[in-house]
Each structure stands twice: as structure tokens, then as C-alpha cells.
């Protein structure tokens, strides 16, 4: 933890001293300043354009989907009605919301418990076990994918949504690592004082550690919502009944039925793509601080 703290805290006074940012980039020559902004704005257009294209094309009638105009000549909001009628999109939306919420709640609770165990207690084998946690991050999911499928199959749950989230009851390596870092950053005196007052370990976890690490818990929650929402592989493996599909699995079905495998009714596929993507974009705009914080922490472990 100390290294993380020094790495994040130390540069602040130094970067705060000069008026705005480090010197090398702030060229005084107007020509390179213009070039700089042209490149940056150009890059922004490249990043933003596919979204605009997607939304715009999803509102166009079929013959004009590929006209590549940013503003549709004729609006066809009926595409959204059509996709709604062609597929149980509302079911998929509800499924995606419930599955990703279940995945995020379970992984946040379990990972924080395990992370607190690693951060706070001393016991034989702790470092070996933590090494194992980190080791599992390297293991490709493909290695365990088939036996895990057979477990759920044996339990009679192979065609339900349970396998999409139930594995999260046992914690997930990346989040355990992330939360452990935060728990290690809490001053140990807090817990010693609580112990003197006769607090149980559970109280220390629930009343001291959890409230103080709320931002890290939100990072975990938000990350898992996004990961679970976007997951395609597991819904492909487990879900058979179209009414149980999540949005990405459903969108894949729409692509196969109407797009690539069908009559190239791409306007339906595009409307489905917008419905699949939009909730994540909204979530990101509301909680972007936590997304960015989570990613930056990941890199900082160095």
C-alpha cells in the first residue's frame, strides 16, 4: 500500500507548483499549438463518430441506413417498434438488469469479505493464498469453462441464468486485489481502538472498514455491472430459451436472424444495438469517476 500511496500522493505538490501541467507539451509556437488541437479534436471525432453513426442509422429507413449521413433524411423511429415486436427485447432488458445486479451485488459482498481477511488478519499460509488469488487472474477462463458447465449441468441449472452470476458468490481475484489495497490503506489504529472497546471482527469489518472504503466498493460494483452486462460467452453457453437471453445474447440472435444470416434488415439490428449500448453509456456518464478510478488503480499496481 505504501508504494501506492507515495506514488499517488508524492507528485501532487510538484505538479501543482507550475501553473498548468508539465512544461514540455505547452509549446509557445502558435503553429504547433494549432496542430496539437487539430490532432486532439480529430481523434475525438474518430471516437465519437461511430456512436453518432449508430444512433443516426438506427433511425433511418432501410434503404438509407448506409447513406452515412449524420442527420437522417427521413426519420424511421418505427425501427424501434419493429425490433420490439420481432424479439422479446423487454424481457432481455429485464434479464440483463437482474443478472448484472445479482452479479455485482454478490461479487462486491464476497470480494470485500475476502479482501478484508487478507488485509486485516495474520494467519499461516496467508501469502501463499494471496499468491493463488493473483495466480488465478492469469488462468484463461477456457480451462475451467467446461467442468464448470458440467457442474451447473449436474445441478440441473445449466439452462438457467444462475450460472451467469452465482460464481460471484465466491469473490473474484481482481476485485479482491483492488479492495485489499484499500483496506490496507486504513490506519491500523482505528481497528486497535475498536478492539479495546470490545468490538468483534465483524463489527470492525462492517462498521469501520466498509464505510471507509465505500468508493472502492462502488468501483467494484460498477465494474462488475459493466463486465456482466457485456458478457457474451457465458450467455451463449448457458441460455437456450430466448426469453431468458440477456441483451448481448439477444442482439447476437438478432444479428443472426435479421442481419448477417437474414435479409440484411440492418435497421433492426442497429436499433437493437442502441438498446444494448445505451444503458452502459448512461451508467458511465453518471458514475464515470468510479470507472476511471478503477482503471487507474489497476495500472498503478505496476
Amino acid at each position, binding site marked *: 500500500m505504501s508504494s501506492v500511496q507515495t506514488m499517488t500522493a508524492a507528485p501532487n505538490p510538484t505538479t501543482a507548483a507550475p501553473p498548468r*501541467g508539465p512544461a*514540455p507539451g505547452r509549446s509557445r509556437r502558435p503553429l504547433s499549438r494549432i496542430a496539437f488541437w487539430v490532432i486532439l479534436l480529430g481523434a475525438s471525432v474518430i471516437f465519437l463518430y461511430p456512436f453518432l453513426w449508430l444512433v443516426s442509422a438506427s433511425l433511418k429507413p432501410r434503404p438509407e441506413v448506409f447513406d452515412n449521413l449524420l442527420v437522417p433524411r427521413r426519420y424511421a423511429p418505427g425501427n424501434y417498434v419493429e425490433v420490439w415486436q420481432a424479439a422479446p427485447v423487454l424481457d432481455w432488458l429485464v434479464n440483463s438488469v437482474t443478472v448484472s445486479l445479482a452479479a455485482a451485488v454478490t461479487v462486491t459482498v464476497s470480494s470485500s469479505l475476502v479482501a478484508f481477511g487478507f488485509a486485516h488478519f495474520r494467519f499461516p499460509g496467508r501469502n501463499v493464498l494471496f499468491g493463488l488469488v493473483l495466480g488465478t487472474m492469469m488462468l484463461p477462463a477456457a480451462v475451467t469453462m467446461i467442468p464448470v458447465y458440467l457442474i451447473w449441468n449436474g445441478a440441473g441449472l445449466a439452462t438457467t441464468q444462475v450460472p451467469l452470476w452465482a460464481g460471484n458468490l*465466491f*469473490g473474484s481475484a481482481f476485485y479482491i486485489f483492488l479492495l485489499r489495497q484499500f483496506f490496507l490503506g486504513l490506519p491500523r489504529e482505528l481497528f486497535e481502538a475498536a478492539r479495546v472497546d470490545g468490538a468483534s471482527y465483524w463489527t470492525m469489518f462492517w462498521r469501520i472498514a466498509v464505510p471507509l472504503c465505500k468508493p472502492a466498493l462502488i468501483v467494484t460494483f460498477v465494474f462488475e455491472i459493466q463486465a456482466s452486462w457485456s458478457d457474451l460467452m457465458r450467455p451463449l453457453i448457458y441460455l437456450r430459451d430466448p426469453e431468458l437471453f440477456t441483451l448481448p445474447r439477444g442482439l447476437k440472435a438478432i*444479428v443472426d436472424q435479421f442481419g448477417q444470416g437474414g435479409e440484411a434488415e440492418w435497421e433492426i439490428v442497429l436499433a437493437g444495438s442502441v438498446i444494448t449500448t445505451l444503458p452502459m453509456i448512461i451508467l458511465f456518464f453518471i458514475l464515470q469517476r468510479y470507472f476511471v478510478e478503477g482503471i*487507474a488503480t489497476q495500472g498503478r499496481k505496476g
Partner: protein
Amino acid sequence: MSSIAVTPAPGPRTPARPRGRATGLRRREALAGYGFLSPWIIGFGVFMAGPMIASFVLSLTDYDVLTSPDYVGWSNYQDLLADPKVRMSLANTLVFAMLQVPLTMMAALGLASLLARVGRRSAGFFRTLFYLPVVTPKVAVGVLFLLLFNGQVGLINSALEWIGIDGPQWTTDASWVKPGLVTMSLWSVGGTVVIYLAALKNVPSELYEAAAIDGASAWQQFRNVTLPMISGALFFTFIVLTIAALQVFDEAYTAFYGSRAAASYSSDAALFYLIYLFQQAFQFLHMGYASAMAWLLFVVIVIITIIQVRVSRRFVYYEGE
């Protein structure tokens, strides 16, 4: 603060304490520790260690889920080394990774360097913009790939035509499918940008001032100050991006596999290793063969990671060493 002095932590170096009480406390702490760890310990056994063993045992059998497994020894491994589709999918995956990882790192470093030079507010704005594609579900990215890179009417080729270039058939020409998918994947470079930006912000500005006083050019500053100082982040993303690229699945599967009409579309130029593994396991129900494939993938990933660590070690600078 003083509470520490009252109750010293029962670590291994408290010899002065009366033994009985100290060991009792230590045992209680250990038990509580294992208690908090229990979800992970159970999960590790049931969903990691157990399946790993099972997967290896399965790889020595023929198993189709419906009938009980037949022990076949190492023949799955012999078969997969002789399987032209295994070879092709492995080659496809390696080509994809070798294109995608360095290009992602370069693009991300370029964008992060740009962001490091603007004020805080605008950096936040552009960072948000660059990160948006990362939260876009990969299935939708696959759809966008098919449409934007469409050879006849796609936006990319229309733009290329506009500047006088006759664009290739990205989605149907076998030699252009992978470059197309790589280009599309660069759209999701934002996560790496955020990591690099955080690393760039941590480079002490005195180093640049000192370099500038010594008359170092912008390139020399970048080469001799920036790169060494962010080498930790570069190394981390190098490893993580490679492992992810070797398991590429969603976009390519969405665009090229799953429906009968799409199956021969790209003449298997987008048959990545995980796609073939998925087909073997869950479409052909060759669970034993697919398990052997999974172990081969694991071995490939471990070997590549070891090489990367060996090679990179000389270039990575750690603070305080």
C-alpha cells in the same frame, strides 16, 4: 495512537508476552481470517482447482456429455497438434495479438500524451470521450465493425474513397479481416489511455525541467525521461493486453460466426482460437478435445508471458530500486 502501545499486535515477534494468552489470541485471529476468506477458499476449490483437475482428466477422454467419458490417453493432444484448424486458429490469434497489442499501446500512449498536455478540465472531458467505447458491449462493437467496414457501402471505405483510396473488402477478403478487426479494436483503446495518463501525471516535472536545462529535445525528453518513468505501466499493459488479445472472441464471433450464412463468410480468417474452442465444446460437444485445446492455450499464454517478463525486465524502471 496510544492504543497501539496498550495492546501490541500479536505478531510473531512478541516473545515477552505470556504464551498461553498470546497463542489463544493468535488462534482466534487466524480463525477469523480463515472465516473471512472462506467464500474464496470454497470457490477456489469448487470453481478453480477442482475444474482444473477435471479439465485435465477430461482432456484425456472423449466426452460428449450424453454418454460417459471414454479414456483415450494423450490422443486428443496428438489430434490437436495435427488439426489444421487448430493451427490456423492459433496462427490467426497470434497475428491478431501481434498487430493489436503494439498498435493499442502506441495509440494509447499518443492519446495519453496529448491529454497530459491540456488543462485538467479538458483532459477530463476528452478522457470521458475516449473511454466511452470501452463501456460499449463488444457485441455492438462487432455489429459496428460489420457495418462501418462494409466493403461497398461502409463509412470507412467511403471516407477512404473521399481521399482517393480504393478501400479493401474488410469483412470478406481473408487478408483484410484481421487488420480490420484490429483497427476496430483500437476504438476501445480508452482503458489503456487512462492507465498511461495516470502514469504520465506521476512523472515529476523537475525531471523535464532538468532535461530542458541540459538542452534535451522533446524527443530526447520523451525517450530518456517519459519512457523509463512510465515503463511500469507499459509493462503491465503489455502483459494484460496480450493475455486479453489471445482470448479474443466477442466481436469476431458476433460478426462472423453463429449463424449458418455467416459461417463461410470470411473463409475462417477470423477463426480465433477461443472461437474454435467454443465450437468444439458447445456446438460439436467434443468436451475432451476442447479441454485439451484449453490446456494448450494455457501453455501458450504462460510461455508468452514468461518471454515478455524476461525481455521486459531489462527495460522496466521501478521507483526506489
